[in-house]
């Protein structure tokens, strides 16, 4: 009978679907033994690769920072240099040579000894070929390895970054050395477990789903309380926060500003607002006609009075409240407060004072035209303000800046563009010379954990054509930059840096709006004895993400950790059961009732 065929076909379809469930789900069945205590961290994106030569995702750094040591690590207390692969080090008088002494019996997770060869290989090969590691070794002239436990680094000029700023992970040469460099930067897939020196090493990596790290048997430090860490990808921020609420994960290292307040008042969830070496700034086009003859900008943007008036007109406090829901940190100058050992509130801090802004503009001769922008000799205070479409916070901040500047007679026309477009506008070149095509834009920078050199470098003349996007060029600033890079004495270095900040506060190539926060949330019933660290004060971080693995050695499983909450699935089973029974009953009743009913409605 034809109908039988129809049912056989549907049966076939159901079978394929069930098979699909089996095949697909079998993939995810690997994993730890029963009874292990697991720290589950949920985030929006998993690194697309854990190969340090190729990886460019921020998340990859979180994994690498746990898997490997740096030559010199950062102390979670105040991020100052502490022993990493190198146990101790001494600096030559002329400060151009540093000798590092390694721990003779330190071993890799696969039992091989950690030697100076590994250090030399990592600094030279990863330092020159790694996608994000190339800017740290340009000052190093040579690296010697007199014996297995000593490494001597010679530099052209005294460079404080060698101790506490050399942000290159030390890889096991016996694993990575055998692979030709062409493959390393190509499609090489690191074998697992990822041989490392940190407390946990990667044992399972599925790009779109999960990264598992288990305890490193040969770790030289104290044994961590957790047996395993799992980084679980949720595709978007909101899904990760939901998973925390439901108990599917124990910690979310990067919480959205929108979700921060909401998670805060959940019963067993603790939220942390940690400072970070990053800020969001409004950049003014400071390129002189000599350096950028064909640049496109309204010359009035280079009038100091206009910049300082804008600084006074912008209420940074209100932008933080509205755009970032009060989760960012108030900004004072271009050095984030994260760098505890070098940070001070600069003298001219431009508090919110629209009257003073108007005063400055009047004194500078900018005629007040009421609502329309001020004018002076044919020039008009009307500028474009580019902002990236991918960042809602930047867009919101730009609109607020425009609103507030309009009150004092400066018009900023907010233009939302894609990141690529903004990148093209800032690095635009015309016949070989830089020619930036913008008046102002809002973007952000993120620095290294301890050493502020990178952040300070973006305003040096040397970086024009490199990472400088404001094309600020001030010989005194450049000189001070070299001085601070070479000074090993923190107090002296702090003085130099403060003078640099004062300079930028005066010239205002950047008006820094907020220092970006690290927003974290964790379940107090799953993770115990968490103290804010990196740095150790009220603005501390729970696990020093991407900076130091030491907090991972102290935090311990909470009262009800281990298997994920079973509660949810119980109800789900009940619901599905009810639905099935209901549908079944419906059919039975329908069949019986219909046995002798009237023939149904036929059309007329």
């Amino acid at each position, binding site marked *: *009978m*034809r109908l039988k065929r129809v049912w056989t076909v549907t049966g076939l379809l159901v079978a394929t679907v069930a098979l699909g469930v089996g095949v697909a789900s079998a993939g995810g069945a690997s994993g730890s033994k029963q009874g292990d205590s697991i720290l589950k961290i949920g985030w929006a994106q998993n690194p697309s690769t854990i190969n340090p030569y190729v990886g460019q995702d921020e998340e990859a750094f979180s994994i690498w920072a746990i898997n490997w040591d740096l030559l010199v690590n950062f102390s979670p207390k105040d991020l100052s240099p502490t022993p990493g692969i190198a146990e101790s080090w001494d600096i030559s008088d002329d400060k151009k040579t540093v000798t590092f002494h390694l721990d003779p019996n330190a071993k890799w997770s696969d039992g091989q000894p950690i030697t100076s060869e590994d250090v030399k290989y990592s600094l030279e090969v990863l330092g020159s070929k790694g996608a994000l590691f190339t800017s740290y070794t340009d000052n190093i002239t040579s690296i010697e390895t007199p014996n297995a436990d000593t490494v001597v680094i010679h530099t052209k000029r005294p460079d404080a970054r060698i101790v506490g700023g050399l942000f290159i992970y030390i890889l096991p040469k016996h694993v990575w050395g055998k692979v030709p460099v062409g493959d390393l930067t190509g499609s090489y897939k690191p074998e697992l477990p990822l041989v490392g020196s940190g407390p946990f090493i990667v044992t399972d990596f599925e790009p779109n789903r999960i990264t598992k790290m288990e305890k490193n048997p040969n770790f030289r430090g104290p044994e961590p309380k957790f047996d395993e860490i799992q980084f679980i990808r949720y595709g978007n921020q909101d899904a990760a926060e939901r998973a925390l609420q439901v108990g599917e994960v124990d910690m979310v290292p990067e919480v959205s500003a929108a979700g921060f307040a909401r998670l805060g008042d959940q019963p067993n969830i603790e939220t942390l607002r940690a400072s970070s070496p990053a800020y969001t700034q409004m950049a003014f086009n400071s390129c002189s006609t000599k350096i950028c003859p064909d640049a496109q900008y309204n010359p009035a943007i280079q009038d100091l009075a206009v910049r300082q008036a804008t600084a006074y007109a912008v209420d940074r406090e209100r932008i933080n409240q509205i755009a970032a829901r009060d989760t960012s940190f108030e900004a004072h100058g271009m050095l984030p407060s994260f760098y505890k050992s070098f940070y001070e509130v600069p003298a001219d801090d431009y508090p919110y004072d629209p009257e003073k802004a108007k005063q400055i503009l009047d004194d500078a001769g900018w005629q007040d035209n009421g609502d329309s922008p001020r004018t002076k000799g044919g020039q008009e205070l009307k500028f474009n303000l580019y902002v990236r479409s991918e960042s809602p916070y930047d867009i919101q901040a730009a609109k607020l800046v425009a609103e507030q500047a309009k009150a004092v007679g400066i018009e900023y026309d907010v233009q939302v563009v894609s990141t690529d477009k903004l990148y093209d506008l800032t690095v635009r070149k015309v016949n070989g010379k830089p020619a930036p095509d913008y008046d102002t834009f809002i973007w952000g920078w993120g620095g290294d954990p301890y050493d502020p050199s990178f952040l300070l470098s973006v305003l040096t003349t040397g970086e024009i054509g490199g990472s400088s996007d404001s094309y600020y060029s001030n010989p005194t600033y450049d000189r001070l930059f070299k001085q601070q890079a070479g000074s090993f004495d923190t107090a002296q270095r702090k003085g130099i840096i403060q003078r640099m900040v004062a300079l930028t506060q005066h010239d205002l190539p950047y008006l820094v709006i907020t220092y970006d926060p690290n927003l974290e949330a964790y379940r107090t019933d799953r993770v115990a004895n968490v103290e804010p660290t990196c740095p150790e004060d009220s603005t501390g971080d729970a696990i020093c993400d991407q900076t130091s693995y030491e907090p991972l050695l102290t935090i311990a499983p909470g009262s009800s950790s281990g298997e994920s909450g079973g509660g949810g699935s119980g109800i789900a089973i009940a619901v599905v059961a009810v639905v099935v029974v209901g549908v079944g009953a419906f059919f039975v009743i329908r069949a019986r009732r219909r*046995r*002798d*009913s*009237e*023939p149904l*409605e*036929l*059309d*007329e």
Partner: protein
Amino acid sequence: MSALLKVSDLRVEYRGQPIVDGVDLALERGEAMGLAGESGCGKTTTALALMKLLPPALKQSGAVTLRPPGVEEPINVGRRTEAGMRRVRWRHVSLVFQGAMNSLDPVQRVDAQIAEAIRLHESAGAKEVRARIDELLTTVGLTPALGRRYAHQLSGGQRQRMMIALALACRPSLVIADEPTTALDVTIQAQVLQLLESLRERLGLALILISHDLGVLAETCDRIAIMYAGRIVETGPVSSVFEAPQHPYTKRLLDSLPVIGGPRALGDPIPGGPPDPGEMPEGCRFRPRCPYAADRCLSDPALRETSAGHASACHFAPWSEWPAAAGAGSLEAG
């Protein structure tokens, strides 16, 4: 001897408008009754009403009683429920439709469809059903192998024969054939009619043959009923109705028949068309198109016997001869 089928005052309304407006019929066992009339006069609706197959939107009333052989008390169709009717349908009365092409389920083999009908009314083993089907197919002149085919794999004539086989599956005492041959060409038409004729004699089958083609009815039926606008306007033995039509509508119908061998002219069609159920003319429904209409026709004409077994619903019946189309109302027939 009581009639096989007795229908009195059958009415069918659709949203208050009468489609079948008081039909009386009687049919003896083994008798063939023709039902003729223009399309839209309610022939098919009447047929479906006999088997209570009308969609619920059509309201049916009036008495229909069946006295099939071997069943003591008469079956009153009017009062039967759907379940009750299901035991009657095909057991005592079966149906043959005009377009056999879509009277058979296109995705089911024809023998399976016949088997389904048989198994509905008799609990018979597979082998016995198989035998019955082969026997049915041979009686209608088809080779049993054809049973394995689908409807679209048979010719027009074969399909119609298959329909007849299906109709005879449960040995009914009455078969209603609604325009069975209209879709066939003349030669095959004759064969099918001839088949129906022979089956009637052999199985003592009563037949109601519905057609708008008087020629077909003349050949096969004993008696004939002419329907117009939901009513029977004339009924009687075929011979007397054809020779001496007693109703102007029947007369015009017969005149429009081309006579074989006669002048090669088209019969003159009857002017106008059947009335719309919504605006039924007063009194005799044919009045607006009747050349002999008169004031008397304004009152409802009843079906009156004009001779033995021959009745007509015309005030002026019986008509001894048909004068040329005089002016309306001028002639008072005797």
